[in-house]
């Protein structure tokens, strides 16, 4: 796997990650269309937002992160994101202190409520950043969750 890792690092730098992955047969073609490699490789919030094409998020009180303030184990941290902003079409979930910020992106087609819950890994106590896109505007909310045991180790 070492070879693959090295290859990956190199092509990420030159910006051809997806093409190289496809050539190496590592990604299915149908996932290629959707999965945003650059965003999931993001090492800080601005880069991740940029890769997601989400510019200038403004804090919103109508976007909410529902979670317990403290997680007993970082391997499994239940997070729910609820948007009360009309016409929310996309929700992204990021963890500031994870090796890669982005955990999940949800597209909200017509009919779906902007209300999703999942469970994520957190390496350590960190801010959780949720971003919602609604009517071309980008909204955000931040909340700290304390982690008693990190969830990224072996």
């Amino acid at each position, binding site marked *: 796997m070492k070879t693959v890792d090295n290859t990956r690092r190199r092509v990420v730098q030159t910006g051809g990650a997806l093409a190289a992955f496809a050539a190496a047969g590592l990604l299915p073609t149908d996932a290629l269309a959707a999965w945003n490699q650059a965003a999931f490789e993001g090492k800080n919030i601005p880069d991740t937002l940029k890769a997601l094409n989400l510019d200038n998020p403004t804090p919103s009180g109508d976007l909410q992160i529902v*979670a*317990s*303030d*403290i*997680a*007993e*184990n*970082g*391997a*499994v941290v*239940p997070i729910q994101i609820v948007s009360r902003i009309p016409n929310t079409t996309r929700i992204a979930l990021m963890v500031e202190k994870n090796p890669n910020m982005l955990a999940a992106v949800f597209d909200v087609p017509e009919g779906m409520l902007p209300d999703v*819950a999942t469970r994520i890994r957190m390496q*350590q*106590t960190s801010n959780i950043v949720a971003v919602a896109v609604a009517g071309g505007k980008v909204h955000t909310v931040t909340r700290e969750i*304390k*982690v*008693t*045991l*990190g969830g990224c*180790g*072996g």
Partner: protein
Amino acid sequence: MKRRWYGAAAAVLALAFGGGLTAQTQEETQRGIEAYRQALQQGNPAELFEAQGEELWKKPMGPRNGTLEQCDLGVGPGKVAGAYARLPRYFADTDKVQDLESRLLTCMERYWGIDVQPVIDAAYTAPAKREIIALTTYVSGESKDVVVDVRPTHPKERAAFELGKRMFFFQGGSHDFSCATCHSEDGKRIRLQDLPNITERKGSALGWGSWPAYRVSAGQMWTMQWRIQDCFRQMRFPEPIYTSEATIALSVYMAATASGETMRTPGIKR
């Protein structure tokens, strides 16, 4: 990896109990942990193991190509509902007191025709243990919300209870530990984990009644045998053999003490 882990734990200890924290802060921490545990209950990945176990229960397997559907877990051949809440118990056909896992081994041997020794010898994380872990989870789920009813009456059940009780209080190993060191008083804990007092009914049910459990830390499904084995490791005792007499005796002691309380299986834990 280990070092980082301890580092994080130390940080939390400092966070939760460190210099001059008010009782209110500790209460908030406790509330946060409760909220976290509640959220986990919403979807227990143990369900995935239950589904696998149910499929295995009905699937022809092994050299005999038989199924476990005729397996008698103590409440009649093929009956699964409520069976776990009445185990361990004495079985005339084997002339032994058996817990769920040892009984499943008997049935796998009988109906699948497999040699179960490799299952006994395998590490809990090895593929050879996968089937019995899934089956145990499935059977345990069929006793969810059922009242524990383990009352030793047969001489071998009574003997197992007495042996289990002695095991529980037996102090030894390099750290001079016993099960009772951690589990015989109310209100004890390690870090943020509450330690149930297994010497009384409610406390014993908190322990006995919640295993097998999905452990989120490693995403593993732990059976009661695995839990006991790891307690032995933590006490620096020699590792018990899977489904050995000593482990079943301990289970008889816990189950009998928990009798009258309700099974919450399969559980989910940090």
